[in-house]
């Protein structure tokens, strides 16, 4: 079966003071190729840890992960990553940043230039090709990051709050761009976010994680991403189901937050 399969993944690590933390417990997931999944949860629920394990930056203490029936054991070009910010190489121009992956593979110059040109067109940065990345605005920088990731043609794209640092308007535009890219490229995408709306809009599937230990609390299958591909995202938000789901998930996360607060209070 092609796609990403995660089986009973757990992660537990020791603290310097002798205690230990169960960051993730028994996470099982199956993602088919081309699926778009968003991950929500209160802070500290292990979303980023999960993503880092899938990316191969962290080793789980238990469980198995396979991508296209191949064991995941470290970072590789088949899983691209888009970070919140600060991951662009500021000593390179926009063009060089986007072409980084192909360069590492020693792809012929002409092929590389073609890919870079195409992707810069897709993300609308053709005019900024030779600029230094630090001359761009935050939204433009994230477009470069997206293009850089796509240039490497990964099977899975992992996004760690890629739009978290953007202002509301830019964010909305970028959400549209993510959907467009998803549909056009057919990539499998896992997107971590703090925003319930974003998770609903950009998640064909949505999982809500609960903390202590980090685990999957609830899973949804949603129609909004599919709707958003063609329609205006603001129209999608006006959908009656959207508001219902939003309230439901917000309620759920609030309960978790309150539980955490309560527990901390008790332990005091």
């Amino acid at each position, binding site marked *: 079966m092609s796609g990403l399969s995660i089986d009973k993944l757990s992660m537990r690590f020791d603290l310097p003071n002798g205690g230990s933390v169960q960051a993730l417990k028994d996470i099982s997931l199956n993602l088919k190729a081309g699926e778009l999944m968003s991950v929500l949860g209160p802070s500290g629920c292990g979303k980023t840890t999960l993503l880092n394990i899938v990316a191969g930056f962290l080793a789980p203490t238990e469980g198995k992960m396979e991508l296209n029936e191949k064991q995941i054991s*470290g970072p590789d*070009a088949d899983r*691209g990553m888009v970070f919140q910010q600060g991951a662009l190489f500021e000593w390179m121009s926009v063009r060089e940043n986007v072409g*980084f992956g192909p360069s*590492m*593979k020693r792809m012929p110059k002409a092929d590389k230039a073609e890919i870079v040109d195409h992707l810069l067109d897709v993300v609308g940065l053709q005019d900024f090709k030779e600029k230094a990345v630090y001359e761009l605005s935050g939204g433009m920088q994230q477009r470069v990051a997206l293009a850089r990731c796509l240039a490497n043609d*990964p099977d899975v794209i992992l996004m760690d709050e890629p739009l978290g640092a953007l202002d509301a308007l830019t964010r909305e535009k970028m959400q549209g761009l993510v959907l467009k890219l998803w549909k056009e490229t057919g990539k499998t995408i896992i997107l971590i976010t703090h925003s319930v709306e974003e998770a609903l809009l950009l998640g064909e599937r949505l999982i809500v994680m609960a903390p202590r230990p980090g685990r999957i609390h609830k899973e949804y299958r949603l129609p909004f991403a599919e709707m958003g591909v063609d329609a205006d995202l603001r129209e999608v938000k006006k959908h009656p189901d959207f508001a219902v789901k939003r309230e439901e998930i917000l309620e759920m996360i609030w309960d978790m937050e309150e539980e955490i607060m309560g527990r901390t209070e008790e332990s005091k």
Partner: protein
Amino acid sequence: MIPLILYVAIFVAAFFVVRMVSEGRGTKDYISLKTVTFGDESAVRPNRAASIISVLSIFFMWATFTGSTLIPSFLHMPGPFEGTTTFNYTVENAAGEQDDATVTVLVRPQGEDAVKPEVEAGDGFAKNDTAIVNKWGTKVIVVQGNDDAKKADGAKVVAINGEPVVARTTVVVDGGSVTLTDKGTPNFKAKTGWQMAPLYLPPPEKVWARTLEIANEGYRNFSLWEHVGYSLFRVVVGFLFGAIIGIPLGYAMGLSNWFRGWFDPIVEFMRPVPPLALIPLIIIWFGIGETGKIILLFLAALWIMAIAARSGVSGVNIAKVHAAYSLGASKPQIMRHVIIPNSLPEIFTGARVAMGVCWGTVVAAELVAASQGAGMMIMVAAKFQQTDIVVMGIIMIGVIGFGIDLLMRWAEKILVPWKGKS
């Protein structure tokens, strides 16, 4: 005290004058419209007029307190007395009789030929005297040497210019002061004024003339450029060796547990040891030749460069490294395309510090022992009391040090334009 008061006065006066002149002028840029400037560091910009006046006033102070010919003489501070002056002394002989005589003193610049003024011997048992005294100098004038009433007979000086004196009393006379020594002989001290003797601080034009002279003729068998060149050569070679060893060492410390653990104690111990403290050991081991100096500068630069490279590596945003790995980069590619470019700004900062330290160290090392170099030049000149060469050397060392720093900053701007932009 007087120079300080004058300096403060110039500072304050310049402030008010510049403010009055520039009132309502100047650019109307954004910062000039800020009302809160006290406490807003970004609104504090160096006043260019102040900088110019500051430099000029240092030269003015230098000129006015050395009687420089660069400024008109009415701007000079009161100078030392020069010329001929006289004072009277009164001798009382054993019989209690008194007689006056005049001492004529010629005060002339040191080293200048002068003819003793001719005077009449005069009448009475005290005879007139003459003496030649250096500017800023003193002289014990044996006034009774030619008198009829000899000291051995019990005659002694009892008054100067009519003022009764005993041993160690001082009387102010024209062009100086006279103090009676313990043995009863007048000691004439020429009036010094507020200016400094060239021995302590030569005027600017003398320093400039000496600079030209040394530039043309050299000093101690080496031309000025050879002296400076030797110093620079030592700095550059020592620094390069330090960078060649130090940067890879720093990278290794930033990338490997074992290297970090092994070299941490060494680097952390050696870093706070001032390179100057190593000079004696270096001289014992390597002598005073070129090798010793270059090794000293190598050691001065090594730790700074190692620490700069190490912090350059640890300063890499982990997201960049993760991004590069998931874009398929191998370890050598990460090194070449992420870690090295990312650490360059830190390495440049380290290089600037290291060059500064090396320049300071080479001068100090040359002060101790060398046969050529900027430090050696001022040290030898000081031994021969050639203050003008000392002053010239200090200014030159400062200018070159500043030049090195400017050069490094310029290189930094060209080579690492992304510094501070992440």
